[in-house]
């Protein structure tokens, strides 16, 4: 539908909003969004898996550790992102501590860099990775590990051949729970990334709010939705294929 002069939506049919999206400018934003979301998912997996493993292994501390994973949700994500700004600013806590300790001579620019956005994304979505992995690790039968040990499997092999395959459902669920919201996030990149690190979520949000171009915003979000669906289906298929090959080796 074409856009009205005053930002409304007028009836009619057009594909212009979709063709407009295939501009190098927007494609670059799209590519960046996907790259960051994938990187965020991988980092969350690398950090979250060991944590989930430790929680699942512990007996006495398990309830407390789980509670601590959920605890950050008690504060709104917006407030926590502002706390991140407070930490990462040029005059923020991290920089003032590092200056006092003499690690750096002048403040490092942390805020408004890709690093800041990535830190914020990982920070926000890490619990969504830890919880499903924990859920699948917790159900793992310890006698399977004993069996593997008795049969002579070294720790690395025990992990790769027994623990990892059996926790795959958790890894898959966690990856989806991190990847999909990471793709759609606009708050983190807006507040921690400034104007330079635009993600697709910012683009859509802008079209709906300040640019007042709802049709284009809808087209952009619909394209992203289609891509997410495609990516998720590809991911699940790859996972199924690898699950079928794995036990045979």
């Amino acid at each position, binding site marked *: 539908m074409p856009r009205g002069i005053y930002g409304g939506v007028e009836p009619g049919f057009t594909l212009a909003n979709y063709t407009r999206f295939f501009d190098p400018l927007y494609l670059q934003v799209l590519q960046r969004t996907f790259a960051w979301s994938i990187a965020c998912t991988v980092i969350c997996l690398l950090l979250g898996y060991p944590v989930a493993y430790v929680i699942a292994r512990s007996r006495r501390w398990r309830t407390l550790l789980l509670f*601590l994973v959920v605890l950050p949700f008690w504060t709104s994500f917006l407030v926590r992102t502002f706390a991140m700004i407070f930490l990462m600013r040029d005059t923020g806590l991290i920089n003032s501590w590092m200056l006092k300790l003499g690690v750096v001579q002048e403040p490092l620019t942390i805020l408004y860099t890709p690093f800041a956005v990535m830190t914020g994304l990982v920070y926000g979505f890490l619990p969504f990775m830890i919880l499903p992995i924990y859920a699948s690790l917790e159900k793992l039968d310890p006698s399977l590990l004993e069996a593997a040990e008795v049969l002579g499997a070294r720790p690395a092999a025990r992990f790769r051949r027994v623990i990892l395959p059996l926790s795959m*459902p958790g890894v898959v*669920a966690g990856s989806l729970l991190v990847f999909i919201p990471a793709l759609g996030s606009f708050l983190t990149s807006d507040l921690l990334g400034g104007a330079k690190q635009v993600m697709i979520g910012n683009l859509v949000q802008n079209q709906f709010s300040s640019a007042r171009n709802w049709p284009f915003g809808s087209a952009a979000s619909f394209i992203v939705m289609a891509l997410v669906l495609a990516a998720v289906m590809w991911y699940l298929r790859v996972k199924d294929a690898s699950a079928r090959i794995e036990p045979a080796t």
Partner: protein
Amino acid sequence: MNKPTPRWLIGLTAVVYFFLHLPVLVLVVFSFNDSKFSVDWRGFTLQWYQRLWERPDILRGLKASLIVGSAATVIWHWRGSAFGVAGRWRDSCMFRSSLLR
């Protein structure tokens, strides 16, 4: 399986927990700071909390949040139970297999 968890795993976990809680901790600590500008520490105060109580608009907002939150919990309790029953009935649901296991 009574072997101790490897040290480096526990260390990594500690680092991750620190990372997860640092922003909130900083928030809490600096809410007692006696300075409007956040970075420098000027001593302990409760004045921000006192000011919070003095503002009727914030208290009204808190009340609205509590009402909305409890209403949402009650409504979703019913709907969630309904979904749960439906999910058990249709066992092959993809949602069930990929997210709840």
